[in-house]
């Protein structure tokens, strides 16, 4: 008998090995992939986000929880797609051109995956052309841009301008974040959403998509 609560606990504890094993056993026992995601995995990542926000969890715990979530999702994603279950949204995520910092981006990616989004991680030093290619080729409907440096913040506007020039701006919602980014700056460059924390990125994405 599979105890599905173990999947929830494994993600909370950042235990990728157990998360993967329980998912395999659950699938073999005939449990619905969507049920595993919606009833066990997403609530676990929501709880991780809550604990992070109130300083019970810190960056290591959050990243390990995300790794556990990813290990389970890798098994489930093809099955979900085969059954026509779509992710909440498809996010092209990257640190903007000129900026090589990745920790903020990784935290946001972890929380978005936990929130049911499919994350296309474009890495660091991402050019406007790479974001545009992810919109065109991978059908991303959200672009999430990160910057740590004040000198690379302008790359966000350059990327948005390039999206406009390429005719893809209206196909996506854009959210931005990073240490020097403010809501005022996000509005000035024409982004649709802003978050000052990794956990807040999920609600920023929901808000940008749903209005």
């Amino acid at each position, binding site marked *: 008998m599979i105890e599905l609560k173990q999947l929830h606990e494994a993600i909370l504890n950042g235990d990728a090995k157990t998360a993967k094993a329980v998912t395999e056993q659950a699938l073999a026992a005939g449990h619905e992939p969507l049920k595993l995601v919606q009833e066990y995995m997403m609530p676990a990542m929501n709880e991780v986000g809550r604990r992070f926000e109130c300083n019970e969890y810190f960056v290591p715990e959050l990243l390990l929880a995300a790794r556990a979530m990813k290990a389970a999702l890798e098994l489930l994603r093809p099955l979900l797609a085969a059954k026509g279950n779509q992710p909440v949204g498809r996010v092209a995520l990257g640190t903007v051109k000129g900026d*090589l910092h990745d920790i903020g981006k990784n935290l946001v990616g972890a929380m978005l995956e936990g929130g049911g989004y499919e994350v296309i991680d474009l890495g660091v030093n991402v050019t406007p052309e790479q974001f545009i290619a992810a919109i065109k080729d991978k059908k991303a409907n959200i672009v999430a841009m990160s910057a740590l440096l004040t*000198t690379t913040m302008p790359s966000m506007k350059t990327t948005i301008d390039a999206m406009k020039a390429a005719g893809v701006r209206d196909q996506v919602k854009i959210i931005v974040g990073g240490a020097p980014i403010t809501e005022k700056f996000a509005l000035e460059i024409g982004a649709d959403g802003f978050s000052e924390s990794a956990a807040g990125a999920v609600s920023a994405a929901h808000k940008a998509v749903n209005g």
Partner: protein
Amino acid sequence: MKFNHLVLQSPRRLALPISMYPGLALTGAKVSDIVTNPQAQLAAQAAIRQRYQSPFVLCAMDLSAEAEAFGCTIAVSDSEVPTVTGRLITSQEQADKLAVPQPGDRRTGVYLEAVRLLRQMPGQPFVFAGCIGPFSLAARLVGVSEAMELTIAEPELMHTLLEKCTVFLTNYLKAFRAAGAHGVIMAEPAAGLLSPRGLSAYSSAYVKRLAAEVGDESFNIVLHNCAAKLLHLPAILETGLKAFHFGAPMDIVAALGKVAPDVILCGNLDPAGVFVQMPPAEITVKAAQLLTATTAHRNFVLSSGCDLPPNAPLASLDAFYAALKQANAAAH
């Protein structure tokens, strides 16, 4: 010369912004000059000192030089502080085999020479060297994001790297002292992303050892952590150090209420949100508010929460010092 005595006995409020890069606007040098040429650091600090009459001069905060000495590759540009790229260490075996460099290797020699030059400046300023902290250095060797996970998933690997980083940094600080530095600002930002328990085990324990080896009585170590929050403070104080420099996430007024009156706290105006993005008039107000909130604490030194970015306007630093001048004029 003791930093703590200098601060506590000063009749005026003091400021110690981490401001090497704004000096570029005065000398015309590029960031790439600063991080490769000790003379460029001297020129920038001389220009800053002449403009603001600060009792302190300091080396550039460049948290890639030590990692480069270990063998990491870095990206250098004319306009941005160098960044470590890629991961040097990906396994326990590599960590075991990693050789500890010598002070002076690669660009650490630039900073040792910068200290020698700063020490010769007229007026005998208090000279701060700059270096990275042990956890932040280990994190750069293994990848910062990966280091976070490894503190829980593979603690042995992190401790292996921390041992080697601590050996190097101990020798590096001794070399700074021999070069004439009165102290060092040791930047340990990555440790602020850990839990208090993690910070204690992976940073404070090593900083404490390092400080004991170097001898804090004759050499002032100011531990900088721009990511730490108030809940990290007890773990940070475990280092036993007597001077700290915090970033914007720290509730500096509350922190001052929790430390002994002879422990110096410096901070903590946001370098990006205040110095880069605010107009000068607002910066003066912000700095004045912080000085007012800390009036009762002689052990507080007004500062930026981290090093000022290369694109922080000089007018911002002017506005910051204007608040200090006004506060001191009002008090006397």
